């Protein structure tokens, strides 16, 4: 099941493990991505914390974690290929995996239909 935030992050949840990325809409707004700073394994994050930094040619943006938990791993592939976020934001361009500490936080997020409706109004 995939959930979305109003800040254009997505999280795929499988049991207590979530994979977080930014949406295709977000990468399109950012333009060419040249650098991504992902969180280190073991980092404790509270929902809404700044978890990663994504830099396009023209701007730097913070990426917030949609849920609280402990980082399992950052996507090491983004160090050499930050443009994976442009080419495959929904898949290979994921940012980090996290062990959820409170699965009830997911209830506050949007499903795909709600996110699409949200973006359509922007």
């Amino acid at each position: 099941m995939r959930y979305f935030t109003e800040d254009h992050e997505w999280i795929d949840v499988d049991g207590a493990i979530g994979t977080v990325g930014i949406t295709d809409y977000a990468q399109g707004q950012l333009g060419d991505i040249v650098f991504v700073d992902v969180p280190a394994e073991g980092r404790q994050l509270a929902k809404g914390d700044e978890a990663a930094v994504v830099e396009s040619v023209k701007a730097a943006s913070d990426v917030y974690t949609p849920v609280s938990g402990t980082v399992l791993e950052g996507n090491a592939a983004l160090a050499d290929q930050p443009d994976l976020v442009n080419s495959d934001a929904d898949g290979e361009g994921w940012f980090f995996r996290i062990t959820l500490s409170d699965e009830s936080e997911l209830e506050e997020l949007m499903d795909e239909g709600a996110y699409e409706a949200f973006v359509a109004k922007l």
Partner: protein
Amino acid sequence: MSDAETLLNVEDAPEDQEEPQLLPLDAWHRAHGGRMVPFAGYIMPVQYEGIMAEHLWVRESAGLFDVSHMGQLVLTGENVDRALEAVLPGDIQGLGVGRMRYSLLLNDEGGVLDDLMITRRASTDEDGTSSTELYMVVNGATKYDDIGHLLEALPDDITINLQDEQALLAVQGPKAVATVARLVPGVDSLVFMTAGAFAWNGTPLWVSRSGYTGEDGLEISVPAEVVAAFADALLEQPEIRPIGLGARDSLRLEAGLPLYGHDLDPETTPVMADLGFALAKKRREAADFAGAARILAERERGPAVKRVGLLVTGRQPVREGASVVDADGAVIGRVTSGGFAPTLGGAIAMAYVPTDLAAPGTGVRLVQRGKVHEAVVAAMPFVPHRYVRQGAQ
């Protein structure tokens, strides 16, 4: 996700500015997929297909830039060249017809009010006698202040005409001149920093072989009412694609060229900005331009701080506003432009640093949003210029 810094090097309009103006090509940019943003008091395209692709296209082929926001001024009057030398440190009296120079508009303290291109061109007086006039292209964000300063500084019999009925296009890249020559015969006879009158389908154009990307190319002044048709004709050439402000900024940064309002401002002098080439020898000897005493003293003894290029370790851009710090973390300078260099595949910047740290190869530390970045002072341009000079053809 949220923008920590939005469009750092391309958002220039002060917040108190009036409603941004529209360019003559506004509808054309939108029709070609331009993403429009406010810049220098205008709504301008920041990108079309994407900054990276546009940047690389200019380096290998040719790109079309709309720079109609810039001020095109024509100055006329007896001894206008001599009068202008009060506020420009270049040899304007020695400027030949069809020749152009880069120069700096200075205040009385020697601070840079603007950087500009000035060209002497032939004209005809009202009584039919042949004469010359000076054509200046100044920055868009500063053009009205420049006119105000010039009106103060110049004698009353000098006339300044802001040509706001003229659009300005730049075509830049290794294939620019040969491609434009198919539409505008003869422009390939120009060499770098020369200019002349040409025509496209009967429309008069003023064309110079110049630009601000480090590449060979042309800048073309064209009447606003035909600029859309002319831009269409240029874009029909397979070598030419439209290029936005984003790539214009990364191209000029790689070329080591300062951007006014970022790398230059009234607090910087030509010596601090490492633009000593704009101080003509004859003018230095005469010491008769605004701020000459301070500027010449600085040139003699060295400025306290100097504009340098930086190669930043790693891929993360370090942008305008980052600090240069010493080993103890004390702020000793600041980054005035910075970003990712598509041609080099790494991060580069321009900064003002103490002169004893300005030699190429010197290591410096930068701090941005609490994170330390290592950098090395590098000679500029970062990417070699490819201008086509006299005798090179």
